[in-house]
């Protein structure tokens, strides 16, 4: 079986499972999980094979060979001669069309094409692996739910959509599945649609994501206008010329292949907006905490491990685009670090266990953004590394929280239970492992990935401390002879300058205001913010651990007499997930398996990225700082919460007036209601009034004029409609007969 066939199988198997579940769900009854579990399990097995295949062909070593395999399934849409590259657009870079006119009209051509490369293989493994464990867990968690088949159909549908998202080899296809995973998320958040909160949360999630999609849509339009294609890979046009894809090898090999300046920065910021929506970063993070209204397994899969990492994936995939725009890169880091800090602060005062984890997810995703924004190979791979470890330990924590919720009769408020470690030892032990990983305690998984992120930030803040490889590489080196066709535009203009001599000189000096942010001082600030966040993370994680599992046993009334450890089918996934949560970091860090594997991803072989490659060094000083921050957080949590349950958490009293501010999530939701929702609704009311009282009146005024209207209306009352209808029929018939007769 060829790799391309296997690649198609990964999304296809869950899709088939979803369809079977929809069609036969009722008949399967309590066995409705079978198609989904089997389909996702098979997909996971295939994904593993693909991982091995990809690893073999990349070879590894000092200079990784880029690996990508593209499979075209069918042509989705074509409009011939839709685009004529202008001299100033990047579509006209040399090598564009070998031997032919670089400015010939291009088709708007979208193929359903899948790709396999190290990044995709890694993501597929995470999606199907975590998906499988969550599906198994759900057999126990969701049993007796009236929507049992619907749940598994949606989970399988989600695994399909998410696999397609990371395997798509085209920006439009990415957009398609970007929204498709959003729709699955919408349906899963609103799974218990009878609950008004769930229905509202689902709608909120979809709408906030739509704002992000707004950015993605415009970003995709600009990509199309700038590069004349939306494909990642190079394609062969019928006349035998090569159309370089946006992330294809032809363009990647060209040091001036990517647009910087105002247009490039605009594209990158729009993609960032999209990523902020999907990955719940400021200012679009507000939907994720509410999304916890959905079933907990869905939260674990979609809102912790996989879907929310789509933003990380998108930016990592678009790395070469970002490398041409240092201002956009540093913005990614600023957004990420700020989000990490803000979400961690809010997380410290939440009493709902799932919401603590939700804010923690937002915060950890912020770390990944911070790392991506450094624009170094270390930063990109560290982000994916953290994405991987986070997927394991956060899924573990969510499933653990679900296990607690399951036995507490649906109660998830940590103030209402406590001391559960005796009642549910497996859940408690695995939750503790997940917490240690999240808090970044060595040698658990999170420690290593977080350390790499801190190192990548440190490297930007104090370049000299990192030797010659740590030099400032964000600006793409450009060869003088190709700079003339370098595709940047003046000012915020949408049209290039006609004078190419001037263009060339303008090009070198080209920078946008944001680029000024790319200074060591900013990076140093970001590093310290990230370090503080590490401490806060450890604090809120262990606050949750202590509140839930330590102290005297307390169980809410809702749990009844059924408060017990969850069934085997639920604890088994916890135990399995605890293994990578413990070991993944250590293994992957010491063997450098992941980073050298990922380095063969085409996007990371772009000269601008590859040039930043530095030998992996374990920075003892940074590791020490990170560990100290974590330890401090745990100690404060212990002081505040350990053994003092009856007094109430005195720690929160120290916060004083800050506490209500944090408890109300910094009033960001209220701010959006006041600044966005209410004004739009007000304008909508005005528009509706205008429509009714002005435009409509005008028409009615005109309508009163002709007296004949009265006659017309009277005819309606004659009751002889049949006669009119018949007259009509006869009239049209006459025309047709006339036509036929003259035939």
């Amino acid at each position, binding site marked *: 079986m060829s790799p391309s066939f296997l690649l198609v199988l990964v999304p296809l198997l869950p899709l088939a499972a979803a369809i079977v579940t929809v069609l036969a769900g009722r008949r399967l009854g309590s066995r409705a999980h079978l198609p989904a579990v089997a389909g996702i399990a098979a997909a996971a097995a295939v994904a593993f094979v693909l991982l091995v295949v990809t690893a073999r*062909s990349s070879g590894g070593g000092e*200079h990784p*060979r880029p690996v990508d395999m*593209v499979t*075209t399934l069918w042509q*989705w849409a*074509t*409009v*011939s001669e839709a685009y004529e590259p202008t*001299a100033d657009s990047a579509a006209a870079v*040399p*090598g564009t069309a*070998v031997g032919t006119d*670089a*400015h010939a009209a291009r088709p*708007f051509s979208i193929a359903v094409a899948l790709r396999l490369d190290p990044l995709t293989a890694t993501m597929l493994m995470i999606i199907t692996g975590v998906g499988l464990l969550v599906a198994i867990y759900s057999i126990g968690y969701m049993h007796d739910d009236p929507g049992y088949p619907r749940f598994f159909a949606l989970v399988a549908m989600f695994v399909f959509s998410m696999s397609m998202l990371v395997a798509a080899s085209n920006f439009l296809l990415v957009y*398609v599945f970007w*929204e*498709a995973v959003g*729709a699955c998320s919408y349906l899963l958040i609103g799974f218990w649609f009878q609950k*008004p909160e769930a229905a*509202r949360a689902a*709608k909120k999630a979809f709408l906030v994501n*739509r704002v992000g999609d707004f950015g993605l*849509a*415009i970003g995709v339009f600009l990509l*199309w*206008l700038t590069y004349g294609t939306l494909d990642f*890979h*190079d394609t062969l046009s019928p006349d035998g010329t*090569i159309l370089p*894809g946006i992330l294809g090898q*032809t363009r*990647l090999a060209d040091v001036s292949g990517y647009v910087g300046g105002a247009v490039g920065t605009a594209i990158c910021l729009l993609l960032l907006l999209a990523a902020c929506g999907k990955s719940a970063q400021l200012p679009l993070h507000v939907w994720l905490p509410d999304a916890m209204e959905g079933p907990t397994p869905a939260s674990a899969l979609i809102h912790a491990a996989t879907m929310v990492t789509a933003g990380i994936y998108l930016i990592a995939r678009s790395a070469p685009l970002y490398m041409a725009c240092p201002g956009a890169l540093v913005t990614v880091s600023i957004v990420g670090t700020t989000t990490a800090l803000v979400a961690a602060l809010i997380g410290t005062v939440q009493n709902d266990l799932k919401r603590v984890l939700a804010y923690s997810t937002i915060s950890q995703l912020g770390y990944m953004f911070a790392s991506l924004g450094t624009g170094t190979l270390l930063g990109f791979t560290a982000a994916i590394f953290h994405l991987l470890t986070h997927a394991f330990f956060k899924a573990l924590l969510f499933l653990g929280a679900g296990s607690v919720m399951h036995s507490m009769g649906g109660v998830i408020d940590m103030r209402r239970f406590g001391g559960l470690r005796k009642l549910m030892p497996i859940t408690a032990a695995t939750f503790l492992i997940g917490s240690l990983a999240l808090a970044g305690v060595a040698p658990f998984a999170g420690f290593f990935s977080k350390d790499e992120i801190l190192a990548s930030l440190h490297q930007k803040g104090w370049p000299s401390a990192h030797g010659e490889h740590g030099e400032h590489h964000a600006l793409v*080196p450009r060869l003088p002879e190709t700079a003339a*066709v370098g595709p940047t535009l003046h000012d915020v203009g*949408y*049209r290039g300058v006609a004078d*190419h001599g001037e263009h060339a000189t303008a090009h070198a000096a080209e920078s946008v205001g944001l680029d000024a942010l790319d200074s060591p001082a900013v990076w140093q600030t970001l590093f310290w913010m990230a370090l503080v966040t590490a401490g806060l993370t450890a604090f809120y994680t262990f606050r949750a651990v202590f509140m839930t599992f330590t102290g005297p046993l307390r169980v809410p009334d809702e749990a009844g007499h059924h408060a017990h450890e969850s069934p085997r089918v639920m604890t088994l996934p916890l135990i399995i997930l605890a293994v990578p949560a413990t070991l993944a970091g250590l293994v992957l860090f010491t063997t450098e398996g992941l980073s050298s594997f990922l380095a063969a991803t085409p996007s990371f072989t772009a000269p601008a990225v590859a*040039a930043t490659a530095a030998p992996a060094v374990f920075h003892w000083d940074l590791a020490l700082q990170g560990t100290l921050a974590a330890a401090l957080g745990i100690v404060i949590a212990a002081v505040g919460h350990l053994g003092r349950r009856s007094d109430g958490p005195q720690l929160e009293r120290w916060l004083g007036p800050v506490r209500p501010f944090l408890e109300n999530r910094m009033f960001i939701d209220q701010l959006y209601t006041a600044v966005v929702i209410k004004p*739009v*609704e007000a*304008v*909508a009311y005005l*528009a509706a009034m205008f429509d009714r009282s002005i435009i*409509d009146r005008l*028409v009615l005024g005109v309508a009163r004029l*002709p007296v004949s209207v009265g006659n017309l*209306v009277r005819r*309606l009352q004659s009751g002889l409609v049949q006669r*009119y*209808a018949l007259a*009509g*029929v006869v*009239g*049209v*018939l006459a025309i047709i007969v006339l036509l*036929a007769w*003259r*035939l």
Partner: protein
Amino acid sequence: MNLFAPSTHLLLVILLPLAGAGIIWLLGSRGLQTVRQSAAITAVLTLVAAAWLVLRYLASAEAAAGQPFAVLSVPWLTGGIFDIRLSVGLDGLSLWLFGLSALLSLTAIMVSWDAIKEGAVGFYMLLLLLEAAMLGVFAARDIILFYVFFEFTLVPLFFLIGIWGHDERRRAAVTFFLYTLAGSVLAFLGLVTIVLWNASHTGSITFDIDLLTAGLTQHPLPMDAEGGYLQWLVFLALMVGFAVKVPIFPFHTWLPLAHVEAPTGGSVDLAGVLLKIGIYGFLRFSLPMLPEATALAAPWLFALGAFGIVYGALVALVQQDLKRLIAYSSVSHMGYVVMGLFALEPVAIEGANLQLINHGLSSAGLFALVGMLYERFHTRSIASLGGVATKAPWLTVMFMLFTFSSIGLPGLNGFVGEFMILAGSFQRAWTGVNVGLEQSYLLLALMGVVGVVLGAWYMLWAVERVFFGTSRLPPSHEADGESAESLDLRWHEITALAPLAVFVLWIGLTPASFLGPPAATVRKLSLASSEAFNNQMHPGGVPRADQEHDLITHAPPPPAASVPQPDSVQELATVAPSTPAAR
């Protein structure tokens, strides 16, 4: 007369509904069941015949060459200067709309199954007459026939709204009739002017659309003061007629009224097909025959389209009546089509042409479902409905499907058109307008994208209120004490919705097979206007790819051996190590 000739086939398709109407008139005394069964059988037969014709078109040599198919042109009044013929035929532009008319007529009949009990004979006769008229409009290839069928779509709908409508049906019927009649009279004046202008130059009076297009290309209507701005005046006359039909803001107020008051079957045909005649008219007459005037008006109509998108969405946002909400969503969605058409960019125009079909499917589906809700709960008020999902799960699934189609969820049909329209609009804003205009164009294109967000807002808000949560209906409204089982979709409702759902998915997954057949025709019809607009934007004919590119020093192309060839080589493993530069 060869019965199997395509042209006979085409006539037969238009004739079938009329024959059905006649049969219903004859069988009228046999009772409701006979009447509605005859109507349904007629609609099914027409649909099969129409689908068969569409397939014959797709397989024909004419389709491959972008030529009209099944053309039948018979002399009516010939001799001397008169060369008046009646002609019908199908081409790429009319193909899908023709099929859509046949498809939605079946839907319109099936959704009326239980709703119409009074005066069923007249009702179904009118629906079938409407079907024949809709099929005829899209098949007409001369102006006389076009206009006759165009008017014939008004009359049945006027009666359908005025008699079987809801409380304010009289006002709605009159508003609808006056609005569209006023518009179509102006349009007729414009068309007659075209005919006369052509006659004054070619010396023969013809109404044939192809001949007129060719004639006006050779002797364009004057656009200057000397010629009395005749082209401009004709364009305005046609524009008013077609803009009312579409409807383009601010000519839209008849639409919500007509929809809310119309019986469900009428709404389905109205939203699904009749609104499309306006855009069809623009594409058939204005763009090919009046290119300079179209180019001059294009920025304004582009702006009206973009404004209509946001305006319709905002007004929809505060509606309390579900049917009114969907009516305003039609205003918003037709705004996309107008915007795409007058972007005069190939991607946008082909997207707009597809979006006609997409909107026909999704809005017809949504109106049908609102009618089903009304039959069950006797209200359309969003505030009083709630928790329908628990009572009618499959109805909810269908509503969600058409909602997702309407808000442009990828994988379904609505996305394709919307995306292409917006991509083309951005392309126009970015590269194809004068320096002074590009800011405004960009802003308008952005308004289009804002509409995507607003569209999701009002539709999902309605879904949340109507289908989720718990029921807010007083017990007396709870569907007359019927059991929960009977509240879900019934067989005739499934017949009405299932074909639409199939196309929603089909177009969404393989839009290429729906974009392909009309492409050549649409390109041909819009070419003159696109070129006129490009010339207007770049006077002196400076091409977009400016001439100076020859001066650019190209870097040597990469050696051929290292060049990947993805499309020819399906599998492309480990190609060409890209040399890690600048280490």
